[in-house]
């Protein structure tokens, strides 16, 4: 049996790190990181909320595989993984002598238990389907886990590198929501609800060189201007992601601070109900695509901090295809298409915007203005988040809405005809299935590219932009990620100058 082998040594991590950093890392110091949303519990295996992963993933919890700031998969609790030629068997060689913060040992048995817990029928893991592809698991010894899949899954490794697949101890996992215990470089200290989560350096971390920092505090400040004020006042050191791009604008002019305009996994889209007239008409959707000036949207909404996209795929994710020119801004063409579709005088519609996200409210206002120029007259309705979930996401009572999809590799939602935008395309489903089962990188690129093209051509949703993560920090904070290819704010290699 021919096996392809990916082995990435720890050394490589250090090399990469060395390249990024201009200076030799120093140990010690404490860092206060600000994040807008407070997590709802601290267990990433029980909730997909990004706020949880940002705090605990890669800091307190680790999975078998990690992602680096360039989006590459690197060893986590697994040192190497070997995939069989048929793509069905994965052999993980686990790191030896790894301890949980509570002193429990990590081994193959624990790994197996964690994965089984996620696939269990009583699971509250939000993505049990990630794991249910597993046919069986074997643990020949303490350091080896052999997983056999039912079917080829091109995203299996990617999924193993997400917060849903982190390793919890067999004893003490129940308190994970409020008292997380993992194997990560930092151990949990306390969570002051409504204010902050504190964690300290874990001295028993498997890499004795890391982390550099003694203490990390995640502070939750919801509002952009308060974040800014806190950073300027020195109360916080890092803003994980600036919510209001205008703050980034004013910060970038200040020498004491730096702002990274990197990439993220998220795509902001104008979700369109493909079953609701007139949006069930492809021409109408394409007309809207022509009517949107994506660069202007990025300018008005994000003050330029973002990248226009042409499909449901972030530029930071592998296999990205730039489709932004497919429906380049052209209001005349939009009007013509509308006329063709039977709406020479345009039409009225309602766009429902979730209240909690300022970018979606702003984007909604801007889009309403733009579509107004081609006689698509939008009424804006701001919807409180609970309502959004109920009315729009579940009951699909909407025509248009505006939301950011932050999960990486989530194009699969287009394969589900019952998903809230109700896109139903056999062509896409076939392409996606092929992509998932693609044996080689080239095949993967081809089929994932095809997927992007199909939904772009169908103008399923209004694909607008991928927002920058916009981390901002004091000038002396080193090693912070520029890009956010995964949902985490990994402080493992951050140090203070």
């Amino acid at each position, binding site marked *: 049996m021919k096996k392809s082998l990916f082995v990435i040594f720890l050394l490589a991590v250090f090399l990469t790190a060395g390249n990024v950093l201009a200076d030799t890392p120093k140990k010690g110091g404490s860092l206060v990181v600000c994040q807008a949303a*407070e997590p*709802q*519990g*601290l267990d990433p295996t*029980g*909730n*997909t*909320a990004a706020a949880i992963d940002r705090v605990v993933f890669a800091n307190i919890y680790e999975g078998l595989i990690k992602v680096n700031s360039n989006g590459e998969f690197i060893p986590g609790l697994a040192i190497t993984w070997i995939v069989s030629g048929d793509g069905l068997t994965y052999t993980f060689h686990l790191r030896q002598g790894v301890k949980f913060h509570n002193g429990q040992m990590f081994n193959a048995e624990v790994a197996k238990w964690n994965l089984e817990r996620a696939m269990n*029928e*009583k*699971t*509250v*893991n*939000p*993505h*049990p*389907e990630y794991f249910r592809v597993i046919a069986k698991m074997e643990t020949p010894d303490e350091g080896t886990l052999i997983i056999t899949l039912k079917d080829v899954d091109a995203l299996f490794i990617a999924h193993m590198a997400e917060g849903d697949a982190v390793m919890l101890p067999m004893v003490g996992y129940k308190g994970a*929501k*409020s008292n997380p215990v993992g194997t990560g470089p930092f151990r949990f200290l306390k969570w*002051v*609800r*409504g*204010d*902050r989560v504190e964690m300290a350096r874990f001295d028993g971390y498997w890499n004795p060189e890391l982390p550099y920092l003694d203490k990390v505090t995640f502070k939750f*400040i*919801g*509002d952009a*201007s*308060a974040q*800014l*004020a*806190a950073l300027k*006042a020195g*109360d916080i050191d890092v803003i994980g992601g600036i919510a209001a791009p205008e703050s980034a604008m004013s910060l970038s002019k200040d020498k004491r601070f730096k702002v990274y305009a990197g990439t993220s996994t998220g795509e902001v889209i104008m979700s369109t109900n493909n079953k609701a007239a007139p949006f069930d008409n492809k021409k109408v959707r394409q007309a809207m695509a022509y009517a949107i000036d994506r660069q202007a949207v990025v300018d008005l909404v994000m003050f330029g901090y973002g990248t226009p996209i042409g499909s449901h795929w972030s530029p930071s994710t592998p296999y990205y295809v730039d489709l932004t020119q497919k429906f380049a801004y052209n209001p005349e063409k939009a009007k013509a298409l509308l006329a063709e579709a039977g709406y020479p005088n345009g039409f009225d519609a309602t766009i429902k915007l979730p*209240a*909690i996200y300022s970018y979606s409210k702003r984007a909604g206002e801007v889009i309403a203005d733009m579509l107004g120029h081609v006689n698509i007259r939008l009424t804006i309705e701001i919807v*409180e*988040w*609970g*309502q959004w*979930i*109920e*009315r729009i*996401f*579940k009951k699909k009572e909407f025509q248009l809405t505006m939301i950011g*999809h932050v*999960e990486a590799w*989530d194009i699969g*939602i287009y394969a589900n005809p019952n998903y809230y935008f109700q896109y139903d395309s056999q062509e896409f489903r076939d392409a996606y299935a092929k992509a998932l089962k693609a044996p080689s990188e080239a095949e993967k690129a081809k089929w994932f590219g095809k997927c992007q093209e199909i939904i772009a051509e169908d103008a399923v949703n209004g694909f607008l932009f991928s927002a920058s993560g916009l981390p901002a920090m004091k000038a002396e904070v080193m090693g912070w990620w520029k890009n956010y290819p995964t949902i985490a704010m990994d402080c493992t290699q951050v140090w203070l100058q």
Partner: protein
Amino acid sequence: MVRYFIKKLITLVVLLLLVSITVFSVLYVLPGDPAQIILGLNATEETLANLRAELGLDRSFWVQYLGWIGDILSGKGSWSINYDMPVYDLILSRLAVTGPLALMAMLIGIVISVPLGIYAARHQNRPGDMIVMFFTQLGLATPEFWLGILLILLFAVKLGLFSAGGFPGWSVDVWGSLKALLLPAFALGVIRASILTRLTRSSMLDVLREDYVRTARAKGLRERSVVYVHALKNALVPVLTILGLQLGQLLAGAIIIENVYYLPGLGRLVFQAIGQRDLPVVREIVLFMAAAVIIVNFLVDMAYASIDPRIRLE
């Protein structure tokens, strides 16, 4: 007094019961699935059902209501879905922000208003009174959140003396925490002071016209004791009512100013909890807030009675 006390107490309990039922039914019909919000957009139907069962959302209205009331009466309270901790503890930790904020605001309000009100009443229609009345009119017309924003603009953005919001936490920085509450308390307090000043003034004016004030003067009392002993105690009765109403509303109603200053207070908690459909938190906090208003009013009634023998000795 005892009769009066018992009568008021019964009213209090009945009112609380009505409030609890109202709160529960309102939240029962609130659209939005907590499980979906917790698990995110891409969760499977099966996982959702599991979580709903775990949260007890699949049970009937009365089972849920009685369970809830039982938990509250037994002192256990409910459990926050989002924060994974007892709601009581959550309330307590947030009250540590809102409580001092409300009290500081009230204190600022009283300290400004009572002397000003008395001054204005004693100088009725003279320039001093007119100036005071002008400023209170302005105060009444100014939205407190705008005043808050203006204070930020001046003290944080321009002068850099305060931070524009946020709260370091009592355990981290007591002085900093106090400082963080100062501007919002001032914004709240100044607006309250406008109302209270006008009230103190008009109440004082009414009382100063009373026959017994004339009697006190006729007895040869010093003007000071006429005003502060004979008049003030009577004048305070209506002021006290509004004061109580305000304190209750402040405990509950600092939502906007907490949003302006991003304070982790009760108001913000409940505002966010509604969005997150953390129903146990919403329910209990709304009940708590309503109870705060009702209980403060009850205490005011009692304070009233202790000032006014006509009620006390009924």
